[in-house]
């Protein structure tokens, strides 16, 4: 598939317009369906729920762009959360000072980045399939988590920790601000740097990328390390939002992150995709989650619905591709 640059731009521009229209449409549909939907409470609760899912989606998006996948994202977030929880608990629990919270966050980010690095290293140097590598990493992290916590909730953190997940500055949730900053950084990274260019190239044709003088190994390692780093930030936000950590928390996010990427026009084979459409897709999915909740739909029915939507999105994508060729 060869796109000229102009065509590519039109394609993505059309994507943004289409997604925005879809976004407006579902807001209208839910507003009509329930009088409780179009209210400040709904939107503010959405703004608090979106960031964790959003960061995990970004963590999923980077490897997909490079033609891979990271199945370990939710457990990486859990383990990073555990790292923070451990730091807080070993320095006084509820009375831990803010400096230990900062230390804990750094430790959490280190743990997240390390697990991403491990995946990237194995993928880059052994050419093993990313699905398998991240899958075994996921089994390993889940195992470590179960070993450390025995499946229990870990809680008992200082009061101020909740501020990150539940507080707001000028009415804007702090977690949302963190997400926006991360999304912006990723956008700049992907569209303005060598690393970003290399990521797209890797997804299109890894051999050609290697022959054109890009250090594919280093690039892959950075991709998965970044992915792990994003997970750890999501893990920190999840910890402060629920004021507890449990291994296996947010497991259901895995499907939704994949869904958000594909709805947001990321090519499942890698090489194409931008941050903005993915963020729009995320907003759409968040609105649908909240909307379904307000209508009073069953949680399991919603799971099934996500599956159906994923297939519908892929079918639409197939249709568009037919039209293009």
């Amino acid at each position, binding site marked *: 598939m060869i796109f000229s640059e102009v065509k590519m731009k039109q394609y993505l521009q059309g994507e943004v317009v289409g997604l925005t229209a879809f976004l407006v449409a579902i807001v209208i549909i839910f507003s009509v369906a329930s009088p409780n939907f179009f209210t400040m409470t709904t939107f503010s609760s959405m703004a608090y729920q979106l960031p964790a899912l959003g960061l995990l989606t970004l963590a999923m998006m980077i490897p997909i762009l490079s033609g891979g996948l990271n199945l370990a994202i939710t457990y990486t977030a859990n383990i990073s959360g555990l790292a923070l929880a451990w730091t807080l608990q070993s320095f006084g629990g509820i009375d831990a000072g803010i400096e230990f919270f900062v230390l804990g966050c750094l430790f959490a980010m280190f743990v997240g980045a390390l697990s991403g690095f491990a995946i990237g290293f194995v993928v880059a140097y052994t050419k093993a399939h990313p699905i*398998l590598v991240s*899958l075994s990493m996921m*089994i390993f*992290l889940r*195992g*470590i988590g179960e070993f450390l916590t025995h499946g229990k909730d870990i809680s008992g953190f200082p009061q101020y920790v909740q501020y990150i997940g539940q507080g707001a500055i000028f009415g804007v949730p702090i977690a949302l601000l963190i997400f926006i900053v991360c999304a912006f950084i990723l956008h700049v990274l992907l569209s303005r740097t060598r690393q970003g260019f290399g990521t797209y190239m890797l997804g299109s044709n890894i051999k050609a990328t290697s022959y054109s003088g890009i250090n594919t190994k280093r690039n892959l390692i950075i991709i998965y390390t970044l992915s792990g780093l994003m997970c750890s930030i999501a893990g920190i936000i999840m910890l402060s939002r629920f004021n507890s950590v449990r291994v296996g928390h947010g497991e259901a996010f895995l*499907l939704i992150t994949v869904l958000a990427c594909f709805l947001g026009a990321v090519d499942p084979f890698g090489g194409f995709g931008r941050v903005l459409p993915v963020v729009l897709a995320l907003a759409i999915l968040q609105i649908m989650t909240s909307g379904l909740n307000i209508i009073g739909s069953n949680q399991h029915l919603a799971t099934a619905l996500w*599956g159906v939507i994923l297939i519908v999105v892929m079918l639409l994508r197939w249709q568009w591709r037919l039209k293009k060729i």
Partner: protein
Amino acid sequence: MPSIDKMFKTHPTETWLMIIITSLSLVLSITTDQYFSLVNLFDLLNISAVNIIFAVGLLVVLISGGIDISFAVAASVVQYVAFYILNDMGGGNWFLGFVVTALLGIVLGAINAGLIHYFRIISIVVTIATFNISFGLLMFLTKGVYIYNLPDWWTDRVILIEHQMANGTWAELTLPVAVMVAAVVLTWGLINYTSIGRQIYAYGDNPEGARRVGVNVAAVHFISYGWLGMMAGIGGLIQAHFTQEIVPNALIGRELDVLAAVVLGGATLGGGSGTVLGCVLGVLLIAIIQNGLNLLGVTPFAFKAIVGVIILFSITLSNVSFTEIRARMAKED
């Protein structure tokens, strides 16, 4: 008798697995007094039966270059639907049980195959979607209710071989093992001795090349996913027989364990490689490791982490080509 060196060249993964399993068994026989006994051996086989049935099904899909993570949930769906269908048929029996579960499984596999074949959606995405549709609908419709009142034929233990040990305990080989052997032999025949089996290998190795030499791509997709579906259905039947109850989320997570075991046995996600022997050895190795950890008194909470590390290492090692390294070293000499 082929020499070890030759076996390393033709079947490196299988040879490695056999060496590891043998040495692990030796160590466990020495360190624990229960490991080396007929009771433990038969137990290992009884416990691994369902996983091996799933594994040989998944192997065919992996050889064809695809992946399926929905089969374990499909097995749960088949259990519920088959229970109601068999009830409507007046209770059913083993024969009807096999036919109904196999057919239901094939239907579920064919849905995956259809989406993959006709709409060119990548298999991991299709099966993530069908996983969630199946699981969501199953939990919604059953409301998470267990089924205990299975018909007698379904739950009565069928003992094939039994042997009383000196200390009075019985070593028993049960029906699941027989079904497992049948599944292994049939899959072995399918992928080695039928035309479509060889086409599945060819397609997995090089899809475009295979298409151009006239491989029937639709048949490859439908037969590989249908085969896995059938094995999932039968595995579901046997799992319910083994546990004597049907639980909607009992098999969730099993797909990843089985996938890991099959990959351990030498199948790759790129397709075109993998053998039945390797796949069986992969499942057995993980079962033996868990059995050994159990006998050694390691906490069960640590099992998954240990298994995860082992899989991560084996994937890493299996992708590092030893022959290439040896050739490079030989050149330098």
